[in-house]
């Protein structure tokens, strides 16, 4: 039975969307501490302010991350959430589960924690929400021993990598995102668990430019599938689309009558590079002009497929706004093969390149994107040992403030002012 009145929260039991309040109430029947979650959140709803204390450093031995400490600032009223730490369990790539695994993990959480979770956290972890300090080690012991699973990241380390489901169930993935994600997660266990970076660092893997894991927006190191050759066209299917026999965009717009499919309007005119046209009833693409934005493929998935020579672009430096304003990741490597065949060693080389440099020059709490901004993209390209290419930028600089090294300039920088004056009276 309810331990606290929650008239405000009760309002959130109404409406068609699943209610977390109803859900917590159900859980509270099993774990009465959950009443105190509701109680404290109800108080926040009344006070319009959080009732959690600032941070709190807790963790498991030997790990510098994986647990986020949290204590109530009204523990007397809500002893059940006095300690309310979260445990970040590293999710399996693509977030598929067997019910066997999931049930066992949940049972473990029922045993040690509140029984509330986030499936999943924004970074990708399984977030187990709320347990006491003394339960952390036992939980971790069971997690590793019984489940063979491990914690994810928090703190100034490699954060839990994440991927779009990719080749597992998507026809557009240009490399194996889940294998890349899993492999690198395993390869970098030390970096995930023992903070040694200036600040957090995130990997995300998307199989194509649709970027279903928001890599370009939310990761320091984004690997996004693309191709080098030509879009594969099935002209027969093109005709089917034109004839209206296949729904455009995989049926994504079927809830409204947008009129008959118009390949000119819906595909050709929306191609950002204007590189498509009809020749009779054949669709033509000048692939050398295509930027592989995915739009045409999205609209006609049965007629168009990414090229066959597949790989990825690597973009670096995305982050949230604090401090300099949000950044998207910047295209650094336009095309690279990404394959388990070489155990991703070419990708690993780039990762280590950027880490070596960032760990040396990055300031405390400076994301790699901020370090890139601080030193400038030209310097970053140089330290990465890359050739500058126009693909690194949207456009060339418009200011004329170019640096030159002394060696680049005939005669160097040192000059004799007296000699100068001999030829130029002051």
């Amino acid at each position: 039975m309810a331990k606290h009145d929650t008239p405000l929260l009760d309002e959130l039991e109404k409406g068609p969307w699943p209610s977390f309040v109803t859900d917590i109430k159900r859980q509270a029947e099993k774990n009465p501490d959950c009443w105190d979650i509701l109680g404290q959140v109800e108080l926040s709803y009344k006070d319009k302010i959080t009732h959690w204390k600032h941070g709190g450093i807790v963790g498991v031995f030997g790990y510098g991350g994986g647990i986020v400490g949290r204590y109530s600032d009204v523990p007397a009223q809500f002893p059940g959430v006095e300690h309310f730490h979260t445990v970040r369990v590293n999710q399996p790539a693509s977030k598929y589960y067997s019910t066997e695994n999931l049930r066992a993990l949940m049972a473990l959480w029922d045993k040690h924690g509140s029984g509330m979770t986030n499936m999943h956290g924004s970074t990708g972890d399984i977030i187990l929400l709320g347990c006491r300090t003394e339960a952390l080690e036992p939980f971790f012991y069971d997690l590793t021993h019984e489940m063979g699973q491990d914690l994810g990241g928090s703190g100034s380390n490699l954060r839990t990598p994440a991927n779009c489901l990719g080749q597992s169930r998507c026809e557009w993935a240009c490399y194996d995102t889940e294998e890349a994600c899993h492999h690198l997660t395993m390869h970098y266990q030390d970096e995930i668990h023992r903070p040694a970076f200036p600040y957090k660092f995130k990997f995300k893997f998307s199989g194509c430019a649709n970027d279903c894991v928001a890599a370009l927006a939310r990761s320091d190191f984004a690997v996004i599938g693309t191709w080098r050759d030509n879009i594969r066209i099935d002209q027969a299917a093109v005709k089917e689309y034109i004839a209206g026999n296949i729904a455009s965009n995989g049926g994504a717009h079927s809830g409204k009558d947008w009129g008959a499919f118009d390949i000119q309007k819906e595909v050709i005119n929306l191609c950002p590079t204007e590189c498509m046209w009809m020749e009779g009833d054949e669709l033509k693409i000048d692939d050398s002009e295509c930027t592989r934005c995915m739009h045409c493929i999205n609209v006609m998935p049965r007629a168009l497929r990414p090229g066959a020579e597949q790989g990825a672009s690597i973009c670096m430096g995305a982050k949230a706004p604090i401090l300099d304003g949000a950044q998207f990741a910047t295209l650094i490597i336009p095309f690279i093969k990404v394959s388990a065949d070489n155990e991703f060693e070419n990708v690993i080389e780039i990762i280590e390149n950027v880490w070596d440099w960032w760990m040396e020059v990055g300031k405390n709490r400076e994301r790699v994107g901020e370090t890139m901004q601080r030193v400038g993209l030209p310097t970053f390209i140089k330290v990465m040992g890359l050739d500058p290419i126009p693909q690194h930028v949207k456009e060339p600089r418009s200011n004329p403030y170019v640096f030159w090294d002394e060696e680049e300039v005939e005669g160097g920088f040192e000059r004799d002012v007296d000699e100068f004056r001999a030829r130029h009276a002051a």
Partner: protein
Amino acid sequence: MGYDPANPMADRITDIGPPHYSKFHPPVVAKNKGKWLWHEITQPGVLVHKAESGDECWTVRVGAARLISTELIYEMCDIADAHCDGFLRFTTRNNVEFMVDDKAKVQPLLDDLASRGNKFPVGGTGAGVTNIVHTQGWVHCHTPATDASGVVKAVMDELFDYFTSMKLPAQVRIALACCLNMCGAVHASDIAILGVHRKPPMIDHSRITGVCELPLAISACPLGAVKPAKATVDGKEIKTVKVNNERCMFCGNCYTMCPAMPLADPDGDGIAILVGGKVSNARSAPKFSKLVIPFLPNTPPRWPETVAAVKNILETYAGDAKKYERIGEWAERIGWEKFFEKCNIPFTIKSVDDYRLAYDTWRTTTQFKYTNAIK
């Protein structure tokens, strides 16, 4: 056995990482991985993927609150056991996906889901509103300026019809972050709900000594508003900091670094609305969300102002944009001045950038449209 507090390092296992994903692939996925040909959304929330082999993977996508209990997860497992060979997955936006390998298995699954009340709404695909990516709010975090789960629930209730249908011009991605740290992808969402503080931090002089490294607190402030200072606590002069309120833009970074500088406040805090961001590279490059409503009050439990603001933008867009056009693409095509006019949102000075790259947002052309903003 289990953990022995007397001998904590005994038997310790570390650095084993997550289980290999392949153990969790449903059979049809395991078999056809890398060999999918095309997909179709046959009805809202239901996708079919066709493999080269001819196999089909039918996916039913179900909305979830994300803040969910083990009880609910057991129930999901029951469903997966009954219909899906004991497998399920979660999407990158916290929906649940139940997969079956035969069209015939779809309807029974849907029926089962429907039989369980409103716990498992089917939808979130195609040109609709899918789940809201969000953060902790008052349920778990120390810096929020608003709640997360409650606002999301209130908004999704109102937009529910768009979750279960596909009648928008394009997908609409809504995100919520409860503070400027933006743990959700608020900076690149079609519609973003952002918790904002509006009062400078208080200084808890009596606590600062123990809990803060003053130089870190000082350097945390991007605008140099935090300065060294002295204060008298219990008759003793201590080193502390002071804040130049004029310069503070309420980012909260000082509080992140120094617990003795709380800034949350019932009246100060609330919600800003940003729009027009996108992540995908489809057609146009990724875009940042832009601030269009600088402040709406925190009005729990159902945040009616925020709900109305989101719905208004969504429906104005729905009525005006072209097929495939994301909100940001629409706003750029019609011009932001028209966005404000059509959405009937008053333009305020707060939407005018004055941060580091501000100049690039100034209108340096004579091209503009006349709107009701020009008197």
